[in-house]
Structures are given as C-alpha cells and as structure tokens.
C-alpha cells in the first residue's frame, strides 16, 4: 500500500514537472529509445525526476502482476475474509434478536407512530404485529440468544460478536445488496472483495484472489455487480467458481493436450508477445503475458482446491456436504479450503431468504426454518474447522443479509397473505462477525421491545465496512482510488470502526 501511495505521489510530481519541461523531457528521452529491456519499462528517464529504483520496481511488479501481495499500511488482524450473505434478507426476529414483548402484541395493529413517514416494500395500511415464530434460549458462556431454528450454532456462539442494531437506507433487494457490498446503492462501485484484493493482492498466485460461490439456485438479485470491481481494474472482480461441472469454465485442457504441451504453448505465446511489446510498448501486452502464466497455474490449482471429495469423511460429515451438488454446505467447506490456500476474499451468496409469506418456501414459519437448517450446521462446522486448524485467528467471517424484516406481518396489497411473512426492513437488523481481532461472545447494539428500531449501539453499513477494512489493516478513510477526478473509498464519506466488537 505504501508503495502505491509512494507511486502515486511520484507520478503526480513527475506529471507536474513534465508539464513544464515536456519538450526537454522528450528530447532527453529520445536518446534512450529503442532496445528497451522489460525490466526497465517503468524506470523513468526524466532527468529532473528519476524515481528511486525501488519505487519503480514496485510499480512494475504490480503492473506485471496485479495480484502481487502487498502489505497493508497498518498492522492487520486477519489475512482473509469469508463473507456469508443470506440473499433475500433473513429475519433477525426468528434467529438472533429475541423479542419476548413482541409475543404479547401478536395480532394487534401496529402503532401508527411507528408507521408515520416510513416506507415499506409491500406493507400497506395498518399491518398487524407478529410475535417471534421461533423459540429462543440463551446459549454458551456469553449467554447470547439463539433460536431453535439454529440448533448447532450454540456450539460456536461464544466465538462470534453480534451486531444487533445494523441499519441501511435501502429496502429493495438489488440496491440493498449493492449497498451492502459496494457501499453504494447504485451500480459502478467496487465490492469489498475487490477493494481487499486491490489493496492486498493475493497470497496465492495460482488462484483468483477473490472467489465467489453461490447456492440456493439463483445468483443475487443485484446480479454480478455485487462482486464487481467497479472502477478498479477488472482483475480485482470476484471469480465465480462452480461446484458442478468445470469449477471454472474452460479450466480443463482439451483432450489430447498434456500439461507439458500447454506449458510449451504458453511459452511460445509469451515469447512472441514480448517481441510485440518491444514494438508497441503497450502495458496491456505485459499484463497479458502475466495472465497467460497465471491461467496455466490456475488450471492445476483450481480443480485441486475445488475438489471436496479429497477431504476426509468426518470433515465432509461435519459440514454436511453433498459432493457434486450446489449447496451452501459445500461452499462453506470450499471457503475453508480457499482461505487455507491463501485466497484473500471468499464471498458466499445463499439465495432464498426473502420470507414475505406469499409462498410456502418464502414463509417465516416454514421456509425460514428450512433455510436455517441449510446453514446452521455448515456455518458451525466452518467456525470449528477453522479454529481447529488455527486459521480462525487469521480469518474474518461476516454473516448477514442486505436488510432485516419487519416485526409486523406482511399484508401485501392490504390483504391477508397465505403464509406468515415479514416485509423488508432496514431500520434494525442483526449481523455477526467472528475470527481474528473480534471480541468473542460480544453483543453490540439493542433494538426496542418489538425489534423495530435500534435504541443503542446502532451501526451503519459504512461502519461495518470500516471495521472489515480495519481488520485487514486499512484506515478506511485513507484507502482511496482516484476515479474521474475524485477520490473514492468504500465507505464514501462516512463510517466509524465498531470498536465495541474488537478484541
């Protein structure tokens, strides 16, 4: 990171000097033209401003390999992030945010004072409050509440830190997912994973730095932009790996082609591309040379890491994996394998959490219970597995949806719904984090008696981002990228580190 900043400063100085002395610059450079060696590409020949050799090399390395590992500017707490996103928005009121008072109001009209000036995606008129549809118990030494929808989770409850009063200003899936992952509800900003790989590179040059795994039969509503690179170079965007078919499309060599022959092919391609560079000096050619080398290495590394069959039976059982299928459990095990191999950011999306009560699968009493069953065991296993390997201290796990759900039962179009459901609600919902730098067993933030609003410890999406970046070793206010004349950062102009959940 320091190198990047240094580079930017050097570049800026160089540009300023050149503006005054461009003619002189051209003349003195002209003598040095021709016969350029690859290593000298980015060594300036501006006599007034020859950057120190070290800086030039750092720039050059990044340009040849945009995923080269960089040290963060501050001491990091974790090396990798596993982000578990429940797309559709899980109900905090049936999972972690226990509201016994809400039982009492079950079936009563929602007080008008709560509805004034509020907007909901589907609720109309005066909806009725709906009590928790799950039973809760205090678990572990921390005594944090967990519902019976998540029976295994109690075994790791003391490893996580809850955020009970997260809020977002978006109440539709697409924009809210974009906001949760890029810090902006509109298209075009880089995702957290893109920022992380941009700032830190990858620990493993044979795998993508940022891997995306999806389950639940659908990709997120907001589409691939939630793992996009926005205005950052696209090499930092998430690479979607599949647990069915080729893990990455076209990763397999054609029949009849050996690895050695593929190596010879890439060597020949790159030899010629180097000759081409000498003529055209286009840095894209250098990048391509590097991408071909990486492609070759990926062909070995990706199938290896994506193969869960190679894991021992007891590990497979612990997660509850189903080899050959696309499942959240498989993805949790893959996430562990990927961070173990040095992948910087692993993003899981599990689809099917939108419990409006319009269909059975999308109901609080039945659909949600099934979804919880699908994640409960794998998530518990993931935390325990990382722990037993000593990886949990180097990894941050983040869990959450794009918003939460209303304490009121949904009454879409002012009618009675077929099943019990809750509408979208961004004012207060639960997320949790676990891993390096996180205060074990903490719970920060509180909602009111019915779970409608945060009453203390409210944190925003930007705060969550600031905290993730902090744990990775960045000051979120200084980690910026200049685009169209403006410095952009993940947290826009907001964000405070949530110190209460830090160890």
């Amino acid at each position, binding site marked *: 990171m320091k190198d990047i900043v240094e580079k930017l400063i050097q570049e800026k100085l160089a540009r300023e000097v050149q503006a005054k002395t*461009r*003619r002189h610059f*051209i003349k003195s*450079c002209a003598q*040095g*033209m021709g016969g350029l060696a690859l290593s*000298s*590409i980015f060594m*300036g*020949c501006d006599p007034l401003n020859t950057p120190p050799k070290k800086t030039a090399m750092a720039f050059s390395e990044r340009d040849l390999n945009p995923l080269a590992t960089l040290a963060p500017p501050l001491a990091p707490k974790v090396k990798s992030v596993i982000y578990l996103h429940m797309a559709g928005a899980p109900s905090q009121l049936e999972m972690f945010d226990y509201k016994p008072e809400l039982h009492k109001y079950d079936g009563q009209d929602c007080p008008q004072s709560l509805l004034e000036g509020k*907007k909901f995606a589907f609720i*109309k008129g005066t909806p009725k409050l709906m009590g928790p549809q799950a039973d809760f118990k205090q678990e572990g030494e921390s005594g944090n509440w967990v519902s019976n929808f998540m029976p295994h989770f109690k075994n790791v409850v003391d490893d996580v830190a809850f955020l009970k009063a997260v809020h977002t200003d978006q109440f539709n899936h697409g924009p809210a997912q974009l906001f949760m992952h890029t810090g902006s509800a*509109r298209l075009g900003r880089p995702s957290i994973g893109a920022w992380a790989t941009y700032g830190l590179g990858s620990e493993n040059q044979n795998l993508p730095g940022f891997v995306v795994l999806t389950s639940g039969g*659908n990709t997120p509503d907001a*589409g*691939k932009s939630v793992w996009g690179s926005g205005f950052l170079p*696209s*090499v930092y965007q998430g*690479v979607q790996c599949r647990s069915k*078919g080729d893990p*990455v*499309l*076209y*990763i397999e*060599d*054609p*029949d*009849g*082609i050996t690895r*050695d*022959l*593929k190596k*010879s*092919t890439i*060597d*020949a*391609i790159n030899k*010629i*591309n180097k*000759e*081409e560079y000498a003529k*055209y*000096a*286009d840095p*894209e*050619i250098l*990048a*391509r040379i590097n*991408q*071909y080398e*990486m*492609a070759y290495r*990926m*062909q070995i590394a990706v199938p290896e890491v994506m193969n869960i069959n190679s894991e021992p039976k007891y590990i497979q059982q612990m997660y509850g994996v189903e080899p050959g299928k696309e499942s959240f459990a498989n993805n949790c095990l893959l996430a562990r394998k990927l961070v173990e191999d040095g992948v910087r950011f692993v993003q899981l999306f599990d689809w099917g959490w939108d419990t*409006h009560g*319009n*269909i059975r699968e999308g109901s609080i009493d039945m659909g949600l219970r099934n979804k919880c069953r699908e994640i409960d065991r794998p998530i518990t296993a993931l935390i325990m597995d990382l722990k037993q390997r000593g990886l949990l201290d180097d990894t941050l796990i983040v869990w959450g949806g794009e918003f939460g759900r209303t304490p009121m039962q949904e009454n*879409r*179009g002012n009618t009675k719904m077929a099943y019990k459901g809750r509408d979208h609600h961004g004012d207060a919902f639960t997320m949790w984090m676990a891993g390096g730098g996180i205060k074990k067993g903490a719970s920060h933030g509180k909602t009111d008696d019915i779970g409608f609003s945060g009453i203390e410890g409210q944190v925003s999406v930007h705060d969550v981002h600031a905290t993730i970046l902090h744990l990775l070793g960045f000051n979120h206010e200084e980690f910026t990228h200049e685009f*169209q004349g403006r410095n952009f950062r993940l947290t826009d102009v907001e964000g405070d580190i949530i110190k209460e959940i830090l160890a």
Partner: protein
Amino acid sequence: MISIQKIVFLGILSLSILGSSCQDSEKVDFSTQIKPILNNKCITCHGGVKKNGGFSLLFEEEAMAITESGQPAIIRGDAANSEFIKRLHEDDLELRMPYEKAKLSDEEIDLLTRWIDQGAEWGEHWAYSLPEKVEVPSITSAASFAPEIASDFIKNDIDSFVLARLNEKGLAPNPAAEKNIIARRLALDITGLPPSEELLQKFQEDNISYETLVDQLIAQKNYGEKWATWWLDLARYADSKGYEKDIARSIWRYRDWVIDAFNKDLPYDQFTKEQLAGDLLPEPSTDQLIATAFHRNTMNNDEGGTDDEEYRIAAVIDRTNTTFEVWQSTTIGCVQCHSHPYDPFKHEEYYKLMAFFNTSQDEDTPDEGPILKFYNKTQQQEVDKVLQWVNTYGDKKEQKYYKDFLQFTEPVYKAHFFKEFDNSVYDDHASVVFWDDGNLIIEEAYTNKASFVYLNYRSHYNGTKMTIREKDANGPILAQFTINKEKNRTTSQFPLKNIEKKTNIYIETQNDAVAPEVNILNVYWVGFIPDMPGKNQTGWSEVNSAFIKSLNADTETLPILAENPEYMKRTTQLFDRGSWLTKTDTVEPGTPESLNAWNQDWSQDRLGLANWIVDKKNPLTARTLVNRVWHQIYGRGIVSTIEDIGSQSDPPSHPALLDWLALRFMNEHNWSTKALIKEIVMSGTYRQSSKSTPEMYRIDPENELYARGPRIRLGAEQIRDQALAVSGLLSDKMYGPGVMPPQPAGVWQTVYNGADWVESKGEDRYRRGIYTYLKRTSPYPSFLTFDAGSREVCMIRRTPTNTPLQALVTLNDPVYLEASHQLAKKTQVANNVDESITQSYERATFKEITPARLDALKELYQTSLSEFKQNEEASKLFLPFEKQPTPELGALTVVANAIMNLDEFLTKT
C-alpha cells in the same frame, strides 16, 4: 474555443504560482472556476439531495434565494456581507463551511469572493449549449516538429484540431501505419471482421485508394452487423425477458431492423424517431412499428406474486432513464427521487419526462402485448380482405382502428383491469379465473358503441352461461351467451346491446353442472371494437368471419409500443422520494428547462419528445453520438466519460473538435452515421501507427492526445468472429432467431421453465456473435468473459479487461480449437513446416512473420509433433472433427491455436 481554453489554462497556472493578489481585475469564470468548487465542496449538503439551512447551489434562483436564516446567503457584488463567504472564514468549527471538512484553500476562497464581488454571475455549463459555428484551427509555424510532419499527417480537418493540441504539448504525431496494419484496423472498425484477402490485395497493390477501401468496407453488409452490436448494448437487446423467470422473448426482428438501419444509413434523426415513436408517425410502416421494440427490450417480470403495475412502472422508468442515457449522456435516474445532485435537472422534470412513456399500452403481462403479428401468406389474404372492406366502407378512424387491431390486438381491457372479484380471481398469469356464479367489474369501460363484445379466453367446460350487464349485478343486460369448451386461447365475438357512455361493466358466469370453486373459464381480455362498417352490404358476414379468423391466427410476434386511446390514458404523478406507492402531484409531459426549448408545433407525446431530441438546438444529442462513435474507434471518447456529458463529466480532450464534429454531423452530413465514421477513419489521426515507447505511455497513457493510432483489445463478439473468419468457418447468413453455438453443459440454470440450450446445427454454429442467443440470466459465457454484458439495462461502455479467464477461453473453448484446426488445415503445405506456419500466422494476423516468431512457433511445432508421435491416440482425441488426424496436423493445430492467443490477434493494432 481554443483561445478561451488557453486563457483559462494560463489563469490556473499563474494562480498556483503567483497566488491571487495580482489577479483582482481578472473576471472569474463560473463554469470553469466556480462550478467545480461548488460541485466538489458544497453541493453534497447544499444541492439536489440535501438543502441544509434552506440553501442550495444547484440552480441560480436557489443560490440567490432567501435561506432559512431569512437572508440570502449570497449578496451579488458584496462578498464581505455574504454569509456564504463569511462562513468560509469562520473560526468556530461548528459554523465553518464546508462543515466538518478541511477549510477551503486561500485560492478557492479568493475565487469565490471575487466571483461574488463581480456580481455572482451564474454561467451555463458548456454541455448545455452548443455553439453555432466552430473554426478549424490553423496550424502555425510554432509547431515543435518539422512542417513536413504536419503536411504528411493532415488528411482532413479533424487532424488540425488534434495537431493543435499536440503542438501545445510539444509532441509530434506518429508516421502512418503500414498498409496491412491499417487495412486490418479499418476492416475491424467498420465491419468487425478482418478484410477479405481480395480486398487487401487490391489495396496493397495500389489498385484501390485508401478512400475506396473505406467506401467498399462501409458498403458491406457486415458494417451493419458490427455497428448494430454496439447499438444493441444501448438498446439492452436480449432474447429473454429477464428477472427471475427469464422466459424467452421473440424480438429478434428488432435486431435485424437495427442491422438494416445501419446498412441503409438511416439518418440518425430518423433512426431516433422511429425507435422512440415509430408508432406515432403518420401511417407507420411495419418496419417503423418494429423499430419501437427498442423500448420493449425492457425486462418483463413473469414471477408469480409480482404486481404487474409495479413492473410496468419499472419498465417506464427504465425507458425514461435509457432514453436519456442513450441520447443525452445524462444519468437522469437520480432525479427520480430528488433534484439531480449536480446537473440542472429538477425533481418534477423527471416525472414530466416519464409522462411521455407512461401512456403506452404494455402492462408487464406475460404475453407482452401489444405484440405485432406477422401473418403468413394465407393468413394475410384474410387480413387483406378485412382491410379492403373497411377501406371501402369505413371512415379514416375506422380504417385505423381495424388496421391497428389486426396488427397488434389493442386496445382491449386486460384481466388485470378487472375489479371486485367474487368467485373469480386474477391468477397472476394475465387471466381471470371464473368459478360457477363468478362475477367481477370492469371499471369505467367504454364500449365504442359496439354491437359486439370480443372475448379472449380458454374454457374448460361446455355450457357456461355468461351475462354482461351495465353498472352492476342489477343493471340492464347488455349481452348473454353460452361459452363452450376451448382448449386453446380463443377470441370470439358475441352480440352486445350498444350503449353510448362510459360505464362499469359487470360480468358473471354460471355453470351449474360444475362443482363450486372449480375453474371453468380463464378470461384474458375483453374488447369492444367499433362495428365493422358496411353492415348492409352483401359480403359483410364473410368479411366478419375473416376478421374473427384473423384474430385467431397463430402468428409470429414482436412486442412493440402503442399508445392507449384517450379513454384509457393514464395520468402521471410525482412519486414521493421515488417510491411508486406514494404518488403526489399530477404532471404533464415536458422536457427539462435547462436544455433546448420545446416547440409548440410538436405533439405532446413520444413523437414530440423524439423531435425535441433531434432538434438541432439540442446541445447533447449530436455530441453524444459523435463522442460514442469516436470512442468505438479510439477506445476513448473526446469526453472520456462517455456515459456523462454534464457538470460532473471529464472535460473534453478536444472541446472544439467535439463541437465541430457534432455540428458537421447535423448540418453537413445530415445525420449520416456512415459519413461521420468515414470522416473519422479518413483522418491522419486515425491512420497513424500505434507503435509507441514506454515514455510515450508515461506521458499519455490513455492516448488522449493522439500522438499514436488506437490500439485496443477486440470486443467479445469480434474475437470469436475473427477466429471463425480467418479459419474459413464463418457463415455469412444474416438475420433470424438467435442461434445456439456450442457452450459448456450446465451453464443455463433453468429453474422454472423447460428452456434448454439446444446446440445449433450446420452453419448456424458458425454465425456472427450478434446472432448468438442472449439469455439475460445466463449469457453466452465466453462473451461474458470478454466483457460483454447481460443486457438487463442499457450498457453504454464495455470496460475492456485482461484476465486469466480470457486466456482459458481462447486456449480451451472447443470453438477456438475447431477454428485452430480449420486454420491449420487450410494453411498446411505438404512437407514444408516453415511455409505452413508462416501462412497460418499471416492469414490470422495480416502481418509478415519475423524470424524470431517463426522460430518460436517452430519450436512449439516440434514439441507438439514429438508428443503426438509418441502418443498417436492423443492427436485423435485432440482433433475430434478430423477424419484423418495425423500428428503433423495436430501439431499445426497447436501452433494455430497459439497464434489465436497472441496479443496481436486479440488486439486491433
């Protein structure tokens, strides 16, 4: 323009060096000096979104208005007493502005102070007005390079603008590119394909001039395919409806219309009018109706439980946003919720624009009506019978009504208009289900005084009695008839008592033979068509039968735009904070005040809007188009932010050139896109070599000064098209439904519909990329890898990337292996490896092979050959398409594949 820019440049330069004290007399320029400070430092809190303290700096009248304090913040001519300036100097951090931010620099405060003292004149941003004339700069002797460089370089006026800036920067242009290089670049830019051998040879042997080469390429049919590929990104063209279900949509005739429009060089103003409002042109042709499918490329949500009205509005919003993104380089989407944060567009102006699009007949129904029908010959004879009859006996109005109804079956009352269901329900699939004793109401319906009612339905039982009454269950009976079993959707005609006025229509069904709560009938729409004229003439009933037969004809279709009749028109209301559920004031259609004025002669509908867009006074239309065509060719726009020409956009690299091109495009080329493209590629700027040095990349990494020719990676479709072309596989078949070339199994995740990727046979496997079937939730994977989009919404720019996944496509995708195999086969020269490799390389890259390259490829050949010789089985596996696989052909195929992976092959150089 040039001189003004120089002054400004000098102004800034001297400011930063000398400070501000000696600048007092110089006039401050609002657009270049003040607006950027306001946009960067103030407008987040005092602009379109927030107006803290009741103070906004977005519009002049707001900036000068009285704020919450009771005083205006800016007093013209009196900076010292203007709160706006006082707050910048404030020591108390609670009061100092920008709030909780660093203090403005002395220079910034000085500029703002002088601006107010000089009268706080509000300037207009350059983007919102267009000069009447732009002078071509003359190149003076001050050039930093030899005069012969300039005279060799300058081929047309574009070059004078480019040279003027190069001169300013002390840079010289590159020499012209070699003939083979420029021919390939030109063919790729104009046709999206490499040049044919024949054409290249003529050009290389000086049998044709460069200009003739340009003309011949531009006359090829491939030209339309190449430029349509670009336009289809803007039009968000796809073969499926999008959203969760993502069911197939038959809209390929629109794609073919775009190809034809480019090929016949339909002037851009007409091209615009037909797409936005072809249906509103006098006596629209079928082609003009097809053109309106531009705005039927919006997504359609068929998911159960979704509100048709919500997604109809989503489509209308998308049309509004897309129109402004495509024609005005303006992201108007922000204005849906609040005034634009930076640009001069007001909140209610969004809804005025939306009102133009809010009156079309489509309603997010699964059948996507209105759909244009394409009758076959026999069907058309019946249709013609009806039309001839109506033309003979009917008036103009009746003629139009019948023509429209036969073409696209509108206007009708669709199921989701129905209300007050009793033993009947709207079933989410665009029909209403009736049970025994079912009834419902159509509110405020107008029956056109018709003597017949038309019903579109499916019926599951015989003997259902339907009664239609005026007003309610007790109203007078208008019609009573029996409906029998009809498995398929059918349109039938039943006698109706004619009435004059608009009234509620009550419909009930009875079928005692069927148990309660059983679905007896699905009704999709009810139509009241004015009576067919000439009722007393002989032959009427035969024509009437032909009419009903035509309504039931099974035809191919295409979704189009059509306006609701007056009695079904919607009003448009403002949405509070952008939410369609909270509507406030009603608005009339209108265009933003900050742009060109509305001409009262224009109709207040989409056609009027189209006229306003292509009005020569519109400052953004022509600039947007020339900027984007330029971007297609150079990989960078003159305004690099091609999405946005406005107060937040990057300043143009060559402001005068942008305006000159825009004016020339309208006034001299008469909106001819071909003429514009020709002018750009005829320039010396375009014809330069793209060779360069690391130093030049340091000075001008983005090539915004044009001291070298363009060097850009090819687009997704182009990469595949080129591989097929050089290997001789490419089919030149044009038009028709999307095709499905091979793709890996399991790529399509079809959850709800049985749609399958059925691999095309024969030449359809080798069609150009533009014809590849595009399913929005799962586009053709290798195109996606090479940065094509999923076309859910308008995509202005494809950001070129460089990733290992791309390498995997061209190395391992069977499409490229087949092409490599064919290329190797075509260029194989018996017993001459050198010659075989040389031909393969030259055929693919259009360049002479260098000894070093030949050596590298020969080495690869030898390695491959010995591998295949050791393992004969391997070459068989590697060449699955080959009847007689040999180790030699296998090795040549490996080499050909390496060639198709070279940077020079994947790049336009």
